[in-house]
């Protein structure tokens, strides 16, 4: 076993090391004397705990989880998850106790030494059951975690066309290639934490709150992070346990998630249903939309569910100029692992609902779906009745139809789908950056952390542009609360926008200092001095961007879908690095295909997870994927560096285009992802 000496150089972030097999992931960190942690989890979806004997459990560590990170809602109180279940367990996979061994085999063996007596109870498994049955937590009036509405209610107009449908996205595991993991090491009054994460600041804030620590007595450092897709932005019970145990035992404590644990116990995304009603004229114009959105929150309000219901409701009219809109969003508690963000985090769901309805309207009117969309968009900016600001949509859409060669494709085959969406990136409240210039080198830290996107590329480029220094002397470091006072995180298509803007602001502050000291600025003057600037650059304006996808498919007689073409045309703002942009879009398109055809988390009536292996949970394989066509439009944003968001665009646009293509090829109305061969077999 190698003991890595984590010097500063090892903390430099450079994604080119990954293809060489030289990343420093959390499981590569082997501190002397490390204890390995294994977690005993509930085998029941719902049960009363009569007794627990052995291990570290809730009788000793009474801490509760903290709601931090993307879509956090600190206002939840009754439905906050305890770090260890006491009294009751509420989902299969919920932590009940932890054991610690000198190696991972011993730690796993020790799980057998913990004795738990359960009295199983009838679980609330589906969203329908959640609405029907008494609350799973005492102290609540119902299983409704939150209820909110967007827009104002309106009287059903006397429209010639009224269409209503119920549409659903099954839960999806985030399944990054590297599962979650943490090393916590406490010594001399300081808790050092290394973690695979999207945000060191969220993890720090969460641990401070959950364990009641002094903020200056904890430092959270990011290790190389092998993907996250939303699941590594917030706090998890295991992080609190490992930190506590490290303080208790005075030894480093390591926990590495297994894939099975990931599937049962890491917050999955989606799991959303929408009942949608549209009112339309015969020319295709939609005059009103009503919606009722249900989010499967899982067992606790510590995930993203209390945020996502209202967020989805806000985006339900999509990029279209629909005058009347009223959407109710509710998140309901069920005996399943809490819902979390998954690439898109509400955006794909909202887009699925509106795009499926627009296609239904096209079929009803026997119109081309493109013409129906054109009938509902404007040359002017539009503020939707649900509160979303949209730039003029029509010019972009018209060019998308051309760029994606839609008119040609529909002549060639019946199985064609086209989607259109507006991406709402999570730019608020901004992001931080710190730049240190010393010894002729430029070092950069960001508040949000790259987990595979390659932030170092835009960091180098922006520093080069702002300060005129060569890119090869600029180094981005991994996230580290010891180096940045404050920060947000990488999610919601925000980093190039918000972190990029923070880098630009920090560079300009430094440049000004150089000018003040020297009377003028040159890169040589900069590099001969020493500078250290931290900025937290606020972002408040809306920076939406448009995107469109096209898919064509053939369906075999056994119902298997063969994707012939999968194309994207997105406005990415100014592309700071074209290769990274295209790579990110291709990866997201694979995930969009995964959600549409392969991926889902299924539970039986007892709340047991059926899809407990990665092959059952259904990640797409190379064999399932077509060649991607990626085209980008670069309409600069109003930010100094011109960036817009893009990370989530493909998981928004691909499912809607693909399901439409399948619908056309099969002749069957499709309402749910994933679409299975069983539905499509002739």
């Amino acid at each position: 076993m190698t003991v890595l000496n984590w010097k500063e150089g090892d903390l430099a972030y450079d994604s080119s090391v990954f293809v060489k097999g030289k990343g420093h992931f959390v499981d590569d960190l082997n501190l002397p004397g490390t204890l390995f942690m294994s977690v005993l989890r509930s085998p029941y979806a719902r049960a009363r705990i009569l007794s627990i004997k052995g291990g570290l459990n809730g009788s000793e560590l009474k801490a509760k989880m903290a709601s931090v990170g993307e879509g956090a809602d600190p206002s939840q109180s009754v439905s906050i998850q305890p770090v260890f279940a006491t009294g009751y367990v509420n989902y299969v996979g919920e932590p009940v106790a932890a054991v610690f061994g000198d190696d991972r085999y011993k730690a796993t063996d020790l799980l057998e030494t913990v004795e738990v007596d359960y009295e199983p109870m009838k679980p609330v498994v589906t969203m329908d059951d959640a609405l029907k049955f008494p609350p799973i937590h005492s102290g609540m009036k119902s299983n409704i975690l939150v209820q909110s509405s967007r827009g104002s209610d309106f009287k059903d107009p006397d429209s010639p066309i009224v269409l209503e449908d119920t549409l659903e996205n099954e839960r999806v595991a985030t399944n990054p290639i590297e599962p979650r993991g943490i090393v916590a090491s406490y010594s001399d009054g300081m808790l050092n934490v290394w973690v695979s994460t999207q945000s060191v600041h969220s993890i720090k804030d969460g641990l401070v709150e959950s364990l009641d620590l002094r903020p200056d007595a904890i430092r959270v450092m990011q290790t190389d992070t092998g993907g996250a897709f939303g699941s590594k932005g917030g706090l998890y019970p295991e992080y609190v346990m490992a930190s506590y145990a490290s303080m208790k035992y005075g030894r480093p404590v390591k926990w590495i998630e297994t894939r099975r644990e990931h599937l049962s116990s890491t917050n999955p995304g989606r799991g959303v249903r929408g009942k949608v009603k549209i009112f339309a004229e015969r020319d295709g114009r939609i005059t009103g939309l009503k919606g009722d959105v249900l989010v499967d929150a899982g067992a606790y309000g510590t995930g993203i569910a209390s945020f996502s219901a209202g967020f989805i409701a806000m985006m339900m009219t999509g990029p279209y100029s629909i005058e009347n809109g009223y959407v109710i969003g509710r998140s309901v508690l069920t005996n399943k692992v809490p819902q979390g963000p998954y690439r898109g985090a509400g955006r794909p769901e909202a887009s699925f609902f509106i795009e499926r309805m627009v296609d239904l309207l096209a079929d009803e009117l026997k119109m081309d779906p493109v013409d129906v969309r054109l009938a509902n968009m404007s040359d002017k900016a539009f503020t939707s009745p649900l509160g979303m600001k949209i730039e003029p949509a029509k010019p972009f859409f018209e060019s998308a139809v051309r760029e994606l060669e839609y008119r040609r494709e529909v002549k060639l085959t019946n199985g064609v789908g086209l989607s259109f969406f507006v991406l709402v990136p999570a730019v608020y409240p901004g992001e931080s950056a710190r730049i240190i210039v010393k010894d002729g080198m430029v070092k950069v830290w960001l508040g949000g952390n790259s987990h595979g996107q390659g932030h170092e590329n835009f960091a180098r480029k922006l520093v080069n542009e702002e300060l005129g220094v060569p890119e090869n002397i600029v180094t981005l470091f991994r996230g580290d609360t010891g180096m940045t006072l404050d920060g947000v995180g990488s999610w919601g298509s925000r980093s190039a926008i918000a972190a990029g803007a923070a880098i630009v602001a920090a560079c300009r502050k430094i440049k000004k200092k150089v000018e003040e000291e020297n009377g003028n600025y040159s890169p040589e003057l900069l590099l001969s001095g020493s500078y250290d600037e931290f900025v937290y650059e606020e972002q408040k304006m809306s920076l939406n961007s448009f995107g469109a996808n096209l898919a064509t498919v053939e369906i075999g007689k056994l119902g298997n879908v063969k994707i012939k073409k999968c194309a994207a045309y997105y406005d990415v703002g100014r592309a700071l690095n074209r290769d990274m942009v295209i790579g990110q879009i291709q990866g997201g398109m694979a995930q969009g295909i995964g959600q549409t055809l392969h991926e889902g988390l299924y539970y039986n009536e007892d709340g047991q997870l059926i899809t407990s292996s990665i092959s059952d949970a259904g990640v797409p394989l190379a064999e399932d994927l077509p060649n991607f066509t990626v085209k980008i439009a670069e309409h600069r944003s109003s930010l100094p560096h011109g960036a817009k968001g893009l990370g989530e665009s493909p998981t928004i646009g691909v499912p809607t285009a693909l399901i439409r293509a399948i619908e056309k090829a099969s002749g069957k109305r499709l309402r749910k992802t994933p679409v299975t061969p069983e539905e499509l077999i002739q």
Partner: protein
Amino acid sequence: MHPSSFEYFAPKRMEEAIDLLTKFGEEAKIMAGGQSLIPLLKLRMASFPYVIDISRIQGLDYIEEKGKFLEIGALTTLSEIEDSELIKERYRILREAAAQIADPLVRNRGTIGGNISHGDPSNDMPAVIMALDGKLEITGKQGKRVVEASSFITDSFTTLLQEGEILSKIMVPVFDGSSGGCYIKQKKNAGDFSVAAIAVHLSIDKEEKVRRAGIGLTSVGPRPLRAEKGERFLEGKRINDSVASEAANIIVSESDPTSDFYGSADYKKKVLNKIAVEAINTSYERAMVR
């Protein structure tokens, strides 16, 4: 992987392996390629105090025609079957089945002996060997015995292997020129086990009537099934659309799928019906060409 602790043996000779198996009895488990056993150990769904890795035993890795039989050593990997020139030329059905198992990583390690002796109703090789009227050579303390492949798997994960016995050789009859077969497998996703799969092997006479039919089914019953009624129905007939379709209905009636995550029983029957028609037609065409 973090399994429970076990003692590991890697004998180089068959006799040694049999001695160890006899000594440890039910506490021992044979491992060949490890592609079924290791996932079970890793997830701690099974634990065995003794694991006997037979992969180093010499002389169990071969593919050769000997007289009336094609003989395949039990340790031959699925990749070796997929890549064999002899099999590509003369036993296409075997290649088709091998090439559709899981993914290349699994096929590089997984062996034909392991694929059969695990007794998994979703493993592909048993149905093919059954359709070919294959025989299995079993080696034990008392020497060797040969059993019909069709009777080898008695129930889910249960075989005729007695304590101290190892499946050592797979024997497939050498059919004459006017024979052909194919293996069709329906999967939900790439790399999956099948929803349903079928092996059909037909020999035809000079009048182009089916002289002999062999049909094996995967994933549609508690064990790999032989569709004997379907076989008898086809024998003596020329294949056309209505014969194939009627045979498929008979084959489906012999299946016994259960509803599970991969699909409802009705769906599996629907799939089986379609792939049965296709497999019968394709096998007949291949038998005619030769």
